């Protein structure tokens, strides 16, 4: 038990150190713009299908599950605003971040771990390239930029799913549904959600890169590294979400 606690603190310290190194190296040239663009495209392109379909299903499920209760109280007209706020504030960012932790996080950590095991990272260094800049800075930055984009996309698709249910069950037109959604949505809902998405993207990628970059124990370690990266980054998403909700709550009270 004591050993586990010690390992937890050591890992936390090392991830913090890794993050500090990210900010230190991020500021100074050379800048790997081409690799950053490639990684941004890969992260966005690889996840958009999964994020879209999951978001669509979440919108449908949320509306179907909530509808009977609202109908019971005669409050079905509140459906668009309630679902809209729930999706934009909470469900969209968290579900998207969890999908990215599974898909992008495991991909990054397995790729870097495999590069480490097969000495590709050493080969890169021998070729006069700073592997931290080329592999870590680009991936972390790309994930930090792309996650909010994916969240906005997931929110939209989710609302379309919800609107579809409302149209089929309640005869509410898309136009009416979205005008109701935007009537009650404010920047106070959208901005905190976007801001926390940046943090989710950063946390997922930095943990995955840290795990991949420090992988050991040969090919067996690659699978373990990917698994640990997904577990830790998913946990971090919830912790960050909790902190974000606490902070935004302070602003709502003002």
């Amino acid at each position, binding site marked *: 038990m004591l050993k586990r606690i010690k390992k937890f603190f050591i890992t936390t310290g090392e991830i913090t150190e890794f993050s500090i190194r990210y900010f230190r190296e991020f500021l100074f040239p050379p800048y790997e713009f081409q690799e950053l663009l490639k990684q941004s495209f890969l992260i966005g392109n690889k996840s958009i299908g999964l994020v879209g379909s999951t978001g669509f299903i979440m919108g449908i499920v949320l509306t179907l599950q909530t509808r009977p209760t609202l109908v019971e109280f005669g409050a079905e007209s509140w459906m668009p605003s309630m679902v809209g706020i729930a999706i934009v504030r909470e469900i969209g960012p968290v579900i998207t971040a969890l999908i990215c932790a599974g898909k992008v996080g495991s991909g990054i950590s397995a*790729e870097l771990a495999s590069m480490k095991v*097969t*000495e*590709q990272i*050493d080969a890169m260094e*021998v070729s*006069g390239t700073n592997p931290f800049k080329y592999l870590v800075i680009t991936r972390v930055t790309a994930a930090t930029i792309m996650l909010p984009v994916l969240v906005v996309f997931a929110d939209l698709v989710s609302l379309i799913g919800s609107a579809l249910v409302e149209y089929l069950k309640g005869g509410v037109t898309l136009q009416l549904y979205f005008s109701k959604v935007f009537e009650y949505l404010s920047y106070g809902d959208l901005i905190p959600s976007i801001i926390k998405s940046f943090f989710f993207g950063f946390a997922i990628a930095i943990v995955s890169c840290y795990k991949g970059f420090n992988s050991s124990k040969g090919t067996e370690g690659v699978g373990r590294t990917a698994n640990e990266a997904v577990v830790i980054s998913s946990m971090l998403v919830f912790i960050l979400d909790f902190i974000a909700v606490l902070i935004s709550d302070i602003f709502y009270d003002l």
Partner: protein
Amino acid sequence: MMTQKNNIQTPVIEIKDLHKSFGNNHVLRGFDFTLMEGENVALLGKSGSGKSVLIKCLIGLIKIDSGQMRVLGQSVPDMTQKELDAIRRDVGFLFQGSALYDSMSVRENLEFPMRRHHEKDDGSKTLLARVEEALDSVGLLHTLDLMPSELSGGMKKRVAIARTLILQPKIILYDEPTGGLDPITGREISYLINKVQEQYKTSALIITHDLACAKISTNRIVILSEGKNYIEGSYDELERSSDPVAQEFFKK
């Protein structure tokens, strides 16, 4: 012994009293070694004796504990990152598992070191022409657009050799060039190492367990034992030696 005055060679690698430990494991304990220009030297040693550590120290991938280590006249431990990057242009490194970038094609693998060292198309040769020339020298021009996953172990080694040659280094460090290959492919790689030396006038330090490779492609063999340069000589000298450590390697 007579020396030819008109054939004075300069040392390209000089190592004196090199020490390196990992915790309580003292891998290198006062290793001394010199590689002369145009020479191919094999470094033999048991697994875990520190051979790979030694060549990684030479290229600055691992920091040494104490001792002197000069590559092309420059002290490696005292180099800044910029100086290390510059010296790495002149020192090629063939990794044990080839270390080709999985996400890049063969062409991109070869172009990568040139782009990183800001080499551009010049009037006489484009980057692609240089890639083709290097691939041609290892007999794999047809693999230009293939991915590493589509290559066999021997082909990967050849492409990796082409990648080390692309910047026309003065020294090449080979880490187990024939490791994991069948004897026939291993022999082909050994002859290729000779061909590279003749064509590109390189010096080479070859880490190997393969005596056939050591016999074919080197002028001198050094045996690393207990962290030191235990014994050295030509293949024939060591094969005839009565030294028990040398006998361990050479007994049939």
